[in-house]
């Protein structure tokens, strides 16, 4: 009975291999059922995302499990067995537990702190539950991983700050305007990066989207794509009066928006706040515009600065998360080791009970004349004797000690608890 993780992720396998090994849709359930047939593997969960494919197993032996999983993957996905050699990693016991906790808490993700992984893990767990491929061990482990991930999320700020320029722009927009629905948005120029940022802003529900581009045709194409309208480039100043968010990337070599122009715009819009993101290099918007009241101008470097501090912040938070995980591994380890002693405790009690029963019967047979009251008293006496006798060894077994294996062995020998293997099943 051993927890084993076998898998690959964005660090060990390139996208091509990951694509080949994706358990999509019904393939996942199929895979679970196939793994169940592998001898020596009692429980399994498969998680398959674009950045990782991992199998969480309860197996007798990690080495054997590794070999048979490799065979299974090669057959299931019809690929060369050797191509998995460098990609697959194996962890067992506490290392496996740690790995799963880290995956769930998004510490092993490509973008540390990204929130999707927890949902994906829950889905993977549910799929396994649906196919009944999990048991006591993995159920407990997966539930624990989910609660650890939640704890990491509430106790650290690991997922709080945006770590890409586009997300940083959205995050800022939300701190300037409460929410973006109902805000109007203008895209000035049509650089690729601007387009990406624009998509993020638009996906947050802005209404009224305007595209102004030097080549009107291209502007119209983009406007169509965004469900907005195109205007002539020369008219953008006029449009700005109604735009709350502006993303600019025109490829011009000089400023297309000057401070005095912006001053006029602000006057016309009665100082309603404007958020301007200048993604162009060289910059297209006079940086002094940021000095105007209610105008917030960010260029690429500013946004990158925000992202950099956010990444630093996340790394700091990741350290806190690792501490939480260490703590949780410890509690899980305690649970695991108590599991080992459970069969022994049960065997011990059963042994005591059977002796008691035997002896009581003999005694009652020899004393046919005693009444109900006396019989009860004798039974109580026997019960309290066996309870007191097995109390100390039971406590010792439940305790978490280094030499537990030895303790279990000793107790088995002292009390003659054979056939313990039967109890385990």
């Amino acid at each position, binding site marked *: 009975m051993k927890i084993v993780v076998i898998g690959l992720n964005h660090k060990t396998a390139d996208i091509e291999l990951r694509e080949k090994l994706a358990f999509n849709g019904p393939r996942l359930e199929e895979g679970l059922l196939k793994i169940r047939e592998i001898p020596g593997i009692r429980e399994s969960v498969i998680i398959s995302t674009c950045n990782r494919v991992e199998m969480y197993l309860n197996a007798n032996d990690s080495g054997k499990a590794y070999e048979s999983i490799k065979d299974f993957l090669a057959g299931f996905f019809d690929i060369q067995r050797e191509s998995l050699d460098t990609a697959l990693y194996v962890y067992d016991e506490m290392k496996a537990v740690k790995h799963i906790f880290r995956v769930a808490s998004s510490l092993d993700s490509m973008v540390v702190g990204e929130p999707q992984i927890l949902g994906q893990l829950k889905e993977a767990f549910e799929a396994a539950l649906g196919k009944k491929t999990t048991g006591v061990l993995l159920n407990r482990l997966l539930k624990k991983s989910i609660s650890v991930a939640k704890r990491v999320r509430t106790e650290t700020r690991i997922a*709080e700050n945006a770590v890409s320029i586009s997300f940083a722009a959205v995050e800022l927009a*939300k*701190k300037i*305007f409460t929410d973006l629905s109902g805000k109007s948005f203008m895209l000035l120029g049509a650089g690729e990066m601007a387009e990406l940022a624009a998509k993020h802003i638009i996906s947050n529900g802005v209404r009224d989207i305007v595209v102004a581009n030097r080549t009107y045709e291209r502007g119209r194409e983009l406007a169509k794509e965004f469900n907005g309208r195109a205007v002539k480039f020369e008219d953008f100043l006029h449009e700005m009066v109604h735009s709350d968010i502006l993303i600019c990337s025109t490829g011009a070599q000089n400023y297309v928006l000057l401070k005095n122009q912006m001053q006029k715009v602000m006057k016309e819009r009665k100082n309603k*706040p404007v958020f301007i993101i200048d993604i162009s290099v060289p910059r297209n918007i006079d940086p002094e515009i940021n000095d105007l009241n*209610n105008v917030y101008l960010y260029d690429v470097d500013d946004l990158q600065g*925000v992202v950099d501090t956010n990444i630093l912040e996340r790394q700091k938070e990741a350290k806190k998360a690792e501490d939480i995980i260490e703590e949780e591994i410890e509690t899980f380890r305690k649970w695991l080791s108590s599991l080992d002693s459970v069969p022994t405790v049960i065997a011990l009690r059963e042994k005591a009970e059977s002796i008691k029963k035997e002896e009581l019967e003999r005694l009652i047979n020899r004393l046919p004349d005693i009444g109900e009251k006396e019989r009860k008293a004798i039974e109580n006496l026997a019960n309290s004797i066996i309870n007191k006798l097995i109390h100390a060894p039971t406590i010792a077994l439940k305790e978490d000690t280094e030499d537990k294996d030895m303790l279990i062995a000793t107790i088995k020998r002292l009390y003659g608890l054979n056939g313990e293997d039967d109890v385990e099943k």
Partner: protein
Amino acid sequence: MEIILFELALTFYFTATIVSIMELFKGTKTTSKIMLSLSIIGFALHTSNIIARYVISGHIPIANLHEASSFFSWCIVMLFFFLEYRYRLGLLGSFIMPVVFVLMLSSSMLPRKIEPLSPVLQSYWLGIHTVLAFVGDAAFAMAFGVGIMYLIQEHYVKSKRLGGLFQRLPSLQMLDEVNYRLITIGFPLLTLAIITGALWAESAWGSYWRWDPKEVWSLITWFIYALVLHVRLTAGWRGKRAAILSIIGFCAVLFTFFGVNLLLKGLHSFK
């Protein structure tokens, strides 16, 4: 009895203030819940104190500066709960509870004797005039706190350093809106307070307006907030400028409240 209630309220407000300040440095959902619970207990005790004084004296307890600033704090806390319920502005408590605590502390250091009301003041106008004035002033106090929050958040966004409280403070638009709304609540109340004051003055002293320092300063305060609203509506002075003006306005409120009573003498002074 009512003194113990007051002391207890003060103690709870004090602990709430400490927690609210701690929240600025390291806030979690738990700390803000603790802060809110402490404030609620403080408020309940405070309310009982005010009711007790009302029962003992037989009139609304704003007959001396101790009672007045206590009642003022009470109005602020009530409004704070309302805003907390309505808008859930993150960290609002950290900017309001210290104000409440300072007001309560000053109240606790002033003579607390329950005094009979001079016959001139015994009128239904007492309740109407003072409650209008205090609720209005409480709205201005909230606008002050929200204005400070705005300035801090605006500083983060403008300076492009988004550390510290940036994540936990509300958005600029939200703060600006709430600030504006509070002033639109406070201003008509202040206007009504001045009008009812004039009516009361006429019935008590025989003339509507006597250029008493309190009256003069109330008028100054009124003009400041009239200006805040005016420039906002006509010239679009929103955001930073509106926030600064609401802070200046509250300074005028405080001077009208304490300064006039402690530094200048007039008809409104308490014995």
